[in-house]
């Protein structure tokens, strides 16, 4: 599986994502600067966590205007896999690649802790190595992770089996405890928790590995 990580100004989980990918795939991950106009030939594009453009205006709003986003939209339109983690999820909702929006946490506080999640669906390139209903623990670190969409959109997400992960104890007020969702074509995943931070036992867990292993099995 060939992968690229997009680097925006103030991305801060870009190298974590690359390290996780390289450790699991054994392949070098391409780092792509936001002003680049071309994506290398890859199977997976990762939009990493961080505070792109200082979260100015709205989280992800500025990153969505960057040059590389046109290429990412084209990659997704061709069926290429896109994974948005944390700030990457915010960029994906701002770009319209995923529905809804991530609002300020209901408790108004930045939440930084491991959280227990239910794996809701395993029929996807991102979750097939997990078991349906499995509990995994991933860290969250965000101030704006409160997923919001209108009731019709939420019903559609539920009905189509596009809610991939749900919080067991909602840390941010997110609608229907949503932690991660897929797009309609099921090739774009956005989630607030950080799977890339728990791929090595030295970092306190390996529950994030399943997501990357699922992608390898699907895309290699």
């Amino acid at each position: 599986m060939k992968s690229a990580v997009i680097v925006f100004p103030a991305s801060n989980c870009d190298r974590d994502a690359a390290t996780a990918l390289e450790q699991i795939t054994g392949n070098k991950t391409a780092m792509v600067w936001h002003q680049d106009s071309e994506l290398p030939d890859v199977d997976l594009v990762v939009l990493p966590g961080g505070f792109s453009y200082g979260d100015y205006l709205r989280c992800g709003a500025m990153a969505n205007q960057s040059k590389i986003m046109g290429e990412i939209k084209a990659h997704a339109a061709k069926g290429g896999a896109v994974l948005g983690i944390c700030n990457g999820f915010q960029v994906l909702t701002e770009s319209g690649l995923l529905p809804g929006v991530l609002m300020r946490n209901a408790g108004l506080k930045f939440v930084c802790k491991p959280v227990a999640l239910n794996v809701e669906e395993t029929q996807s390139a991102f979750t097939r190595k997990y078991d349906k209903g499995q509990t995994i623990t991933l860290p969250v670190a965000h101030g704006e992770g409160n997923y919001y969409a209108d009731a019709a959109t939420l019903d559609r997400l539920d009905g189509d089996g596009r809610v991939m992960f749900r919080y067991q104890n909602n840390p941010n007020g997110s609608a229907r405890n949503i932690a991660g969702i897929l797009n309609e074509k099921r090739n774009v995943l956005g989630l607030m928790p950080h799977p890339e931070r728990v791929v090595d036992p030295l970092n306190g867990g390996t529950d994030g590995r399943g997501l990357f292993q699922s992608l390898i099995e699907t895309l290699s």
Partner: protein
Amino acid sequence: MKARVFVTLKNGVLDPQGKAIGHALNGLGFGSVGEVRQGKVIDLELSETDAAKAQSALKEMCEKLLANTVIEKYEIELK
């Protein structure tokens, strides 16, 4: 030409910041304060001199960038 754009949350969208501001005002003794909703004000200077053209350009700016219309509404004031 100068313009001012107000971006606020749509009715019905929970505004935890507004709520916290309301609680703080109540705590300061302003007991008459009920619901509080907060938002953004964006001031822009435009080289455009035609008000109708400025208005339509501003609408496009709001739709494309200044507001996220999933949760926000906007008002444009030309000066």
